[in-house]
């Protein structure tokens, strides 16, 4: 047991109370110091650094509104749709709680996509922050599962057919697929059993995993320290420090960034409230119109599309036709040839590459394009996990990368947005071609990164962060 600290008998009641607690629960006080009052964050954060805090805020909104929705919602195929309408019409202020939850889901993805793009811009995933990035990608993946399962609960047409399509993705896996899909659905078609288990996952299992990952993400971040728009380490051995050993380019998170983030929260809540009150359906993008029709297992709506935040990946799924498979096989062969001719690898390793490419090409011919569509869609998310090892640029931040890197990132963003747009459109021959090109670009961007990120002359990186006091 630690030493008991004594305060002077003349101290104020507040000081005595604090001392009483500090002697009995010191870890709360040290946690406050480590994560708030003595967590030094770089002083040159710009507006891109607001989205982490905002993601935490949206998480809280989702948990709180979710708790209240569960009080009125009924996870039963016969009652679910009506219970959501009951919340909307009869529960006092139920409509507001529900719209906050449905808008919160889209807001979560807006904020998380921007947060991830910030990481991409400033190289925040680079050493020593690989695990911070990996936990973040895991949060993104789990968030997708959470959103997907939550979308089934209103039991509308889009809920039903969306779940039908996504669960059937798993049945495309050779050999185990059909049984796996059966295990997920708990019935031969999406039904009451599916709704009940998705409810359980959505309100208990996945949020617990999500919270655990958020804690890991933040602890790992606070261990290695935040990156900044200049990509310079403010806590490194050569970084300038004051007499107490605190970085000169850092400021304590509290009060500086708490105040900064509260401003961001204010702006965010203005936009959020405007959507909740004036456009909760957001033109059919946040709440799809077909979802106001109760689920009907006998008719698929004429046009079904996932909610906007899944559409870039959904486009990539649709892009994989049997024709596209030949293009992909060519890519595999070209990749293997490049690895053998250009790679500085041992002979055995090169033989393994050739063998692997032959096996993969054979499988690509043997197994249906449908399965590979699923692989591509999953791979588009999984590839993000490997970003720390794909980027070989000598500098972290976009600010000091060759100018053409900026254009390349701009094209990447545009391609991602186009893929997202095509994902909400009905299938068309032109859209299919464009999404195929987009899919190849998306994967090329990441898979060729070890090559292109080394090219070009980086600009000189300053010793201290660039910061102009306002």
């Amino acid at each position, binding site marked *: 047991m630690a030493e008991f600290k004594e305060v002077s008998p003349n101290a104020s009641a507040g000081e005595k109370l604090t001392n009483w607690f500090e002697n009995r629960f010191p870890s709360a006080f040290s946690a406050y110091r480590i994560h708030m009052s003595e967590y030094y964050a770089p002083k040159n954060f710009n507006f891109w650094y607001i989205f982490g805090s905002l993601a935490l805020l949206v998480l809280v909104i989702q948990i709180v509104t979710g708790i209240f929705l569960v009080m009125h919602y009924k996870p039963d195929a016969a009652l679910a749709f009506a219970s959501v309408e009951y919340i909307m019409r009869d529960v006092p202020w139920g409509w507001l709680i529900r719209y906050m939850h449905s808008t919160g889901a889209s807001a979560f993805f807006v904020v998380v996509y921007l947060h991830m793009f910030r990481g991409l811009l400033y190289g925040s995933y680079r050493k020593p922050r690989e695990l911070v990035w990996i936990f973040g990608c895991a949060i993104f993946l789990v968030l997708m599962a959470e959103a997907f399962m939550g979308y089934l609960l209103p039991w509308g047409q889009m809920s039903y057919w969306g779940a039908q399509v996504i669960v*059937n*993705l798993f049945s495309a896996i050779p050999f185990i697929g059909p049984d796996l899909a*059966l295990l997920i659905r708990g019935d*031969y078609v999406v039904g009451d059993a599916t709704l009940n288990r998705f409810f359980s996952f959505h309100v208990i299992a996945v949020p617990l995993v999500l919270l655990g990952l958020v804690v890991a993400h933040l602890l790992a971040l606070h261990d290695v320290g935040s990156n900044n728009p200049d990509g310079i380490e403010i806590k490194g051995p050569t970084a300038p420090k004051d007499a107490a050993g605190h970085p000169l380019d850092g400021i304590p998170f509290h009060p500086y960034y708490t105040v900064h983030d509260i401003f961001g929260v204010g702006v965010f809540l203005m936009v959020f409230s405007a959507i909740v009150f004036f456009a909760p359906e957001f033109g059919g993008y946040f709440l799809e119109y077909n979802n106001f029709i109760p689920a009907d297992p*006998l*008719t698929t709506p*004429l046009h079904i599309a996932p909610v906007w935040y899944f559409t870039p990946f959904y486009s990539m799924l649709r892009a994989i036709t*049997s024709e596209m498979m030949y293009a992909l096989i060519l890519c595999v062969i070209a990749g293997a040839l490049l690895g053998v001719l250009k790679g500085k690898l041992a002979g055995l390793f090169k033989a393994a590459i050739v063998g692997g490419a032959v096996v993969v090409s054979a499988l690509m011919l043997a197994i249906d394009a*449908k399965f590979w569509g699923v692989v591509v869609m999953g791979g588009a998310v999984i590839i993000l996990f490997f970003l720390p090892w794909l980027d070989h640029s000598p500098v972290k931040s976009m600010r000091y990368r060759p100018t053409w890197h900026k254009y390349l990132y701009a094209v990447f963003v545009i391609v991602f947005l186009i893929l997202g747009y095509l994902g909400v459109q009905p*299938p068309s021959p032109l859209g299919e071609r464009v999404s195929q090109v987009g899919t190849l670009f998306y994967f090329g961007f990441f898979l060729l990164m070890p090559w292109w990120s080394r090219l070009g002359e980086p600009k000189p990186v300053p010793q201290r962060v660039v910061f102009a006091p306002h």
Partner: protein
Amino acid sequence: MSDSPVDTSKRTWIITSGCVGAVGAGFAAVPFVSSFQPSERAKAAGAAVEVDISTLKPGEKVTVEWRGKPVWIMRRTPEQLETLKKVEGELADPQSARTAFPTPEYAKNVHRSIKPEVFVGVGICTHLGCSPSDKFQAGPQPSLPDNWQGGFLCACHGSTFDLAGRVFKNKPAPDNLEVPPHMYLSDNKLIIGEDKKA
């Protein structure tokens, strides 16, 4: 803490008991994972469905529910049956030879049905399980090729099927629409879910 070295014999037992514990945890997971399987009630549901098709006019289609899935029964016109031969070259599996959704022997023919005009098929796309919509009108229209002869379009991912539920080439769906086991009890009485073999 003593300064004596690690007792390796104890470590062996720690590893052994750890492994035994892991096996126990594996066994404990069985009931939980098993509970994901369809319940006995879900397995019991799925009785055969009887349909009277006497009122079905040529060119009409009805949908009935069998095992929670839509089953289509369509009486095709002679002109519609003609189109089946025309499109044969554009199909992925015109002979229904693939085995992922095995076509029953009695439907392994060009019209994929027992009676040439009456098509019975599960209206669930073999790609990802949407229910395709009717596109019986021939000719160019959105999402369809210009030489469209009439058939079904799955709006989800653009797979197209002819009027015998056969999938066109180079579409996301790999298989023809499933033909459920079915037989005629009388000329106009159809039972879906049972056939003569069963």
